[in-house]
């Protein structure tokens, strides 16, 4: 395996510091980019094969090419640092551990698209990241890596940190723009409001994830060819019933089993039961899928809603009640639905009510059909991906763990919990 680079320095004590960053070759990528034409920078990123690390996996270079080239048009770069997908914590690790990498990536991306103003939309709860970022920003401005005249190139860039107000939906790119403009975070209609055409303040806007921009900094520093040789590493946020939950840098396509092994494997004496491969918005996969490669082709697996997403692997062992997992997951979406569209707003609350009833021993035989029906009513009918994120967990658990639902409904109790308790008693 190639060297780990994204996480290489995040645990260094001095990593918020500009001098240390520069001493390790930092801002070389920016310097190199400034010596290139913006289109060349975009080409280099496109050649690297980098795809957005926010979850949708769109080609980064291609995305930038959608923005108009006309220098008279005001363009913006907006960094999506509103990391909120349950189980995802890689961006926070980068923000807190390698802030200059992000700033370098921002400067390179802004230069490439011709933006002179960039916004970092930071999740409100990331207080530590905010402090680290602000210190890094001050340093970068002082040493002219940002500001009026970046490194004497004549190119100017202002970077502003803005925080959200605690809504998951603000991670959706158009809702983020609404929030950044000072309104209630609700997604915009696409079309016509594709950010690359009509984004922030109705100007063409590139929206990139934190990890994506850190990749960009490395790509420009070492070149697209080098980057490809590294096996396209990405960051996995591994959580749940593993021995060492955390962020792991592994090549794209690493099978689920190896990702879990990298995180220390399952807890002693426990067996893998299921996992969300790509955050709570993805389907739940049972053991037969353990050798499936974690890459963008995860969507081609025969489970509705299976995807790489934000590469947040939430691992569950055999002590887990899947009905509880689904109830908790749907409850999250119920709380985070913005309320704009009917199916998401009403479907999540209804589903939660039914699941809670089942968990409280009040399930009815017809509830399984009903749950499936509510999920179907939300499938393909919601305004944005938030609502569409709910059915996969329902469908996949009803398919792979139907007997757990049935047991709850039939007996009013949980066989998984009972087994765990019995085991503990033994």
């Amino acid at each position, binding site marked *: 395996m190639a060297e780990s680079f994204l996480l290489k320095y995040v645990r260094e004590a001095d990593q918020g510091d500009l001098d240390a960053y520069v001493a390790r070759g930092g801002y070389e990528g920016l310097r190199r980019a400034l010596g290139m034409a913006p289109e060349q920078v975009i080409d280099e990123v496109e050649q690297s094969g980098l795809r957005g690390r926010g979850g949708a996996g769109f080609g980064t270079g291609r995305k930038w090419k959608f923005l108009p080239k006309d220098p008279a048009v005001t363009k913006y770069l907006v960094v999506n640092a509103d990391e909120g997908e349950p189980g995802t914590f890689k961006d926070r690790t980068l923000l807190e551990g390698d802030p200059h990498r992000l700033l370098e990536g921002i400067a390179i991306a802004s230069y490439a698209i011709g933006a002179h103003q960039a916004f970092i939309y930071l999740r409100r709860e990331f207080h530590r990241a905010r402090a680290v970022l602000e210190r890094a920003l001050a340093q970068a401005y002082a040493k002219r890596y940002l500001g009026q005249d970046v490194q004497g190139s004549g190119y100017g860039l202002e970077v502003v940190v803005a925080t959200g107000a605690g809504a998951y*939906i603000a991670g959706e790119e158009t809702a983020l723009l609404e929030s950044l403009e000072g309104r209630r975070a609700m997604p915009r*209609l696409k079309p016509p409001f594709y950010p690359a055409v009509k984004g922030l303040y109705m100007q063409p806007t590139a929206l990139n994830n934190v990890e994506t921009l850190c990749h960009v900094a490395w790509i420009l520093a070492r070149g697209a060819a080098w980057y490809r040789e590294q096996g396209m590493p990405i960051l996995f946020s591994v959580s749940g019933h593993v021995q060492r939950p955390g962020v792991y840098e592994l090549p794209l396509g690493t099978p689920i089993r190896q990702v879990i092994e990298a995180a220390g494997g399952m807890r002693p004496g426990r067996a893998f039961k299921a996992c969300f491969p790509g955050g709570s918005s993805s389907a739940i996969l049972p053991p037969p899928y353990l050798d499936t490669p974690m890459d963008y082709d995860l969507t081609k697996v025969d489970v509705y809603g299976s995807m790489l997403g934000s590469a947040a692997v939430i691992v569950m062992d055999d002590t887990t009640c899947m009905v509880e997992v689904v109830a908790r997951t749907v409850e999250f979406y119920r*709380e985070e*639905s*913005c*309320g704009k569209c009917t199916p*998401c*707003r009403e479907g999540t609350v*209804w589903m939660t009510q039914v699941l809670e009833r089942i968990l409280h021993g009040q399930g009815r035989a017809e509830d399984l059909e009903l749950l499936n029906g509510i999920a179907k*009513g939300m499938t393909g009918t919601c305004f944005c991906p938030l609502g569409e994120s709910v059915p996969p967990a329902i469908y996949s658990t009803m398919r792979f763990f139907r007997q757990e639902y049935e047991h709850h409904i039939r007996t009013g109790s949980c066989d998984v919990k009972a087994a765990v308790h019995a085991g503990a008693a033994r």
Partner: protein
Amino acid sequence: MTVTLTIDGRTVTVPKGTTLWHAAKAAGVDIPIFCYHDRMPPLGACRMCLVQVEKAPKLVTSCTLEAAESMVVHTTAPEVKAAQEGILEYLLINHPLDCPICDKGGECPLQDQTFRYGPGRSRYVEVKRDFAKPVSLGRVLVLDRERCILCWRCVRFGEIIAGDDALKGFERGFQTEVNTPFTMPVESKFIGNTIAICPVGALTARTYRFVARPWDNHRVSSVCTHCGVGCAVYFDVRGNAIMRTQARESPDVNDVWLCDLGFFGHGYVAHPDRLTQPLIRREGGLTPASWDEALDLVARKIAAARPGRTALLGGARMTNEDAYVAARVFRTAVSTTHLDCRLDARPGSPSLDVPWGMTTPIADLATRDAVVLVGCDLTEEYPVLWLRLKQAVDRGASVIALTPKALEIGRAVAHHLVYRHGEGAAVVAALAEARAGRPPGADVAGVAHGRIALAAQALGKASRPLVMIGKAALEGPDGAAMLEQVGALSEALGLPLSVLRGRGNVFGAAFAGLLPDTAPGGRPLEEMRADLERVWGEALPSGRGMSAPEIVEAAAAGDLDVLYVAGADPATDLPDRSRWTAARRGAPFVVVQDAFLTETAQGADVVLPALVIPEKDGTVSNIEGRVQAIEAAVAGPGEARADWQIMSALARRMGKMVAYSGWAEIADEMRSLIPELRTEAIVPLAPRAAAPAADARRPAGAGTVRPPDGSLTLIVGEALFDRGAMSARSGAIADLAGEPWALLHPEDAARVAVADGEPVVLTSRRGSVALRARLSTAILPGQVFVPRGYDAAPVSALVDAAEAVTHVRVAGL
């Protein structure tokens, strides 16, 4: 460019850019929908309008997708049917289904669409969401959060149409609710529209809650005559009472909107204070009399009056036909030249020299790229015009507002030049100079010179500018200079000046001839004398006619024998209250023809009960000169009569036949004199001779008048919601108006130790008035703003019309 597509097997061709929903409508295919309102851009939130498009991976919302060439669309496919049923089931899981007691029942889109597209039964067995209800959001708006389906129409109305952000979404997901911050009373002049466009019974009006079922109402077309914009309305009538006012679609005037004065200002019609029989002063008191007694007495007095010593004041409450007959009867049977409907002009006001009204169609406002608004508080005076102006602003137009009080639409005003009262003309002059390339070197009348220069720049860039002058400019101390400067600016831009002046149907009254020396249609009387004498069969008296302020002064001087006041309340309308006191004292015989025992009527010798607009058939004219038809919604109370009938009966008693079978015959006669007259069209007043030179008696431009020793300069202005004869008797409007108030700058308030909401007494040389203080930086320091229209605390009691500027002292109570 068009595209041709197939919807449910029907081929339809629509312009490129048409959404599927509209294309379906054009093809005669109904698609259910809640969130979309055709005056606002599509939202795609309710998901009710999902359709199937061949080759699309999933269903799409027809309100958001543009029709494309060769598209094949299905709106009744099983998948679509399932989605529609699913969405309706979702919408109803938390809906209380209290249709039997819901005001919306019977005209409810949720009810109708559930009936037509719903699943018929619900699988929902859980406990419904429970909100405390109803929630009162101010004087008229009532919110039921359980009924709300969160279509966002009301919120978007405030953002997109009215620009007042009156209602917003709070909380998230299933807990989302439409509300105001902290459930404070809603701040809007247009909130009635949100009730009208609410697709469920979530927003209701206190004035209509549990009052009627829609199927019991019948709708009568009329026109709102409160402010002069002339919005088309329906009065929903049950029995002989107006249940509510609704907007009637009129693309050229109000589109589909109204202001809240229009929505809730009909209460006066059925008020028990309405006059139901004539009154005659006997032994000091007004006592009931028969029409015969009253008219005989009036006829006798008029017949006994010496030539030229009878005058008519008023007309703004009448229809065009009423005013025409009044003008005919007074010019012929009564034989006077003194008639005028413009009561609220101050003596020597320059507004008496110009025709009132807009010179461009209302709808045209939306297409202007720069609008100079001088001395008009648009949302207080002509609220619905603001909705048009907002459209222009949204398209990038610059509004340049020069006013003595900052406008509440300030957020949309790019160049807001708030001047010191009495010095506005200097600011207009500086703006014109700056436009000509000579920006001011110093601040003018409290306005920063840089801002004047910027405003001039914006004006310079405009290709379709518009200049409008309002009452605050014309009736201000430097009114003459204002008119001159604004007129010059308008002329320099090659535009006819729009005069935003006049309320009610004053435009119709002027059009029908209730102006001195002016014939019906607005031509000089002398030009039309022969025609009029032919049609009316009478010789018309000669001699110059007096304007309203002159009539009042003549009465005060004892130069009149009979003063006839029709549909006006000079005791409260005149800017200087003392002038009416003097006029009443000086006039031996005063007749008042009105709907209420107004202050003027209380002092009259004969009072004749008249009908009000919703009780009449005929036509009215609005601020742009549009003649619109109205139908009687209800019958008047008691023996009250239409103004034209009273005038006709009076003429008969004076031995002249001025008889008509009805309003249509009057209108026909008017048309014979005014060939351009057509209903539902703009009929501009004929151009009059150039305005006479400035009246010598007019107070000179105030220059820089500094108030003496700590007193404040009084600015008298307009408020949409006030407590006049009609508004005080329309409960909701009186409530919205609240107590009479005075606007003080915080610095001035601090000097006299008055806090916001505290009572204050304003005292001038003339008198004093107790008001409630409102603190605001909307005016410059050293001034106090008081709205007129509160009859119980008339600001006119402070004013001496002989003075250019009124100074008042303010003290806490």
